[in-house]
């Protein structure tokens, strides 16, 4: 049973425009959410996170929004740049345990930023 879902396997966006990536989760016990970025032949790298006590977290061009009632989060990238072309993974965890690093990942969304 997949507890974190990314229903869009791919997204194509023009350079300079906004990229919006979506993620849904089913487990209401999750209280910590993260986005990772992955280039080919590399490991995932941390991008941005948000705890369940917030509904928005911003870091430069990246903003994550959390809607707990809908069990939905999204990542906005503004403006999109060619270097943003990568696979983006949504992940969820529970801070309340000692295993916050036990992440449940979505299947990823391949983002392609075109000139």
């Amino acid at each position, binding site marked *: 049973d*997949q507890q*974190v879902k990314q229903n869009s396997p791919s997204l194509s966006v023009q350079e300079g425009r906004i990229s919006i990536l979506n993620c849904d989760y089913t487990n209401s016990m999750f209280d*910590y959410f993260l986005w*990772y970025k992955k280039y080919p*032949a*590399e*490991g*995932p*790298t*941390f991008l941005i*996170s948000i*705890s369940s006590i917030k509904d928005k977290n911003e870091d430069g061009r990246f903003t994550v929004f959390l809607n707990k009632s809908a069990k939905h989060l999204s990542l906005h990238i503004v403006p999109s740049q060619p270097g943003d072309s990568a696979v983006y*993974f949504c992940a969820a*965890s529970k*801070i*309340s*345990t*000692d*295993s*916050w*690093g*036990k*992440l*449940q*990942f*979505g*299947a*990823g969304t391949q983002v392609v930023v075109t000139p």
Partner: protein
Amino acid sequence: EAGVTQFPSHSVIEKGQTVTLRCDPISGHDNLYWYRRVMGKEIKFLLHFVKESKQDESGMPNNRFLAERTGGTYSTLKVQPAELEDSGVYFCASSQHLGQGRTGELFFGEGSRLTVL
């Protein structure tokens, strides 16, 4: 500072053979995790070490998989005997141990790609 390193980067073996993957975490990181990504699907948790102890091995698929972390430094993940469905990319990640209720950053290695023929 060296990141998380994994070896080998790619291993091709036949069904029934044994493979051992190695992970060297970032120095000083007590938490070590193994994850696996199969066929371009989601990255799945396998297990979690705190120092040399297995904190959580609920994600290990079956008893053909054996993970060790002797001395609390590097870790190995052995698959014996390997089956076709074990093919995938095995990621190791490490983090500092900050205690319950506190989060840190999880650093991933580049992964070890396993192909079972």
